[in-house]
């Protein structure tokens, strides 16, 4: 379980996150929603250690995430995707996913150069993982394409696939549906809903698309101006007046 308590983050004078509490239970999809600038991506960037908050705690299964360096998070079971897609764009899709699995390998420079059995074993396992994820996301046919050449929608899938291949127990998804066609979003919703069962990971989902979010999540946290204004199951949130005023009313 991920527990966020009293989180505060300011850039200069701007209070991006202002005392936020929420939890992500294991084995579920939890959504974090809010209008543009509500502070959603800032939360994700705190969770993945790109920003250092001024106050608050972030504890995942007993580990204080705020004590870890960014590259240690994945070892603690936290994987993430990026809103603007930060793929390794010169590499083929398969290699992007393999990098996701690479933190599981234990072979160093020398054994890799000599291709020892241990190094080969890691390659094999990483490939198996990557193939499974590509099949799950239906991007197997993109395997050898250079990531930078793909459409934005496909790149979002590869980004998500890379995070999945890292074998997270908590997956942070930053607007996975942005830039996708309407029909593709429904399909993506189905896919995200299956992640807890297929990969044993809980999901923290950030998105604008209310249809996607409410259809997929077990619980929803609504943010506005850096604060939580509502929390509960999708139906309760849909009826919440403050949410309607702050967010749904705009649509």
């Amino acid at each position, binding site marked *: 379980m991920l527990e966020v308590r009293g989180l505060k983050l300011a850039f200069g004078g701007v209070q991006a996150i202002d005392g936020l509490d929420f939890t992500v239970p294991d084995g579920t999809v939890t959504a974090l929603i809010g209008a543009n600038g509500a502070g959603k991506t800032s939360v994700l960037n705190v969770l993945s250690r790109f920003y250092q908050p001024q106050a608050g705690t972030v504890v995942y299964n007993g580990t204080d995430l705020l004590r870890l360096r960014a590259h240690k998070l994945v070892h603690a079971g936290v994987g993430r995707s990026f809103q603007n897609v930060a793929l390794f764009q010169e590499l083929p899709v398969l290699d992007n996913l*393999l990098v996701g699995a690479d933190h599981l390998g234990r072979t160093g420079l020398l054994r890799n150069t000599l291709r020892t059995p241990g190094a080969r074993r890691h*390659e094999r396992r990483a490939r198996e993982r990557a193939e499974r994820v590509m099949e799950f996301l239906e991007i197997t046919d993109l395997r050898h394409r250079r990531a930078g050449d793909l459409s934005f929608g496909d790149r979002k899938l590869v980004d998500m696939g890379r995070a999945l291949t890292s074998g997270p127990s908590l997956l942070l998804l930053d607007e996975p549906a942005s830039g996708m066609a309407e029909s593709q979003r429904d399909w993506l919703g189905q896919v995200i809903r299956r992640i807890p069962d297929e990969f044993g990971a809980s999901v923290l989902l950030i998105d604008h698309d209310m249809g996607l979010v409410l259809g997929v999540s077990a619980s929803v946290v609504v943010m506005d101006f850096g604060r939580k204004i509502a929390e509960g199951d999708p139906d309760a949130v849909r009826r919440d007046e403050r949410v309607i005023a702050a967010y749904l009313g705009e649509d």
Partner: protein
Amino acid sequence: MSPASRTVPGGRAAARIAQWAMVGAVVVIGVLFPQVYGQDFYAVTIATECIVYALITISLNLLVGYGGQISLGQAGLVAIGGYAGAYILEKVPSLPFPVELAFAAVLTTIAGLILGLPTGRLRGHYLAVVTLGLGVAIPQIALNLTSITNGRTGLIVNPASIGSLALASPVAIYYMCFVVTCLSVIAIHSLLKTRTGRAFMAVRDSEQAAAAMGINVQRTKITLFAVSAFFAGIGGDLFGHLQNLVAPGAFPFSLSLFFLAAVIVGGSASLPGSVIGAILLVLADTQTTSLPGFEPVVVGGVVVLVLLIIPGGLAAVPATLMRLRSRQGRRRARTGSLASGAGD
């Protein structure tokens, strides 16, 4: 529903066969060259120079092309390798060649590690200046550290030996360099296909995403500098044997630039590209020595022309041609369907 139809470019198997055919051809030519031109010591020496420069270019390509770092001082690392080999061979004349090579490589690797340390903070122009400093400083240190380097005169490089076999003739040196370079390229190629190599490229493409995938960015960069230096050191040792002499004047700043030009002209992040780039520039340089004054014009002209015509370097030529061909094919298909539509 699966996202819209996504075509996979065909011909991967064909491309792979072509690749292996090319590697095979290079090896066969490499092995047979001295058999044909063995009497022509000048030709053999030029060929050896091509081989050694190719290895050093590849070592720099690791850094620049695969790692996305910049270096204007690779000749400094080459110098360290060359001096290390020459020095140890002077002290222990009967030292087996592999030990000498390892000594040169390890010493250069240490220099590379030190050079890699500030890369966590420095990039772009700043890194360019730091590496430039190394490239400028090493020959000056070599010039003044006379007790080890023998100052301006430099060190005579004794022939390498394995057991009682001295590798002194141009043909012997050729084969020595050829074998060492082939083994190095194989090692680099396999390293690049593993998690270490992927980490280099991941850091190059996005440091943030690399960190999110569990890659220690700073350590990866230092490793990259060390690996690049390791092979530059090997190249430096061979360089010494090729010249029979290591002297401060043999490693000017322009040599670093020569290697960088070979990387870019050949195509960054391409091993065959580096080989071709190095050979092209060595030939452009050596074939014009009979026309005094024309070397810089020819070398500079080649660099400017290649980069103006093919910005991706020579390695990008097949891909560019392929794209042109497929575009033509598509155009033909479209006109074909138009024609049939008109017939209806």
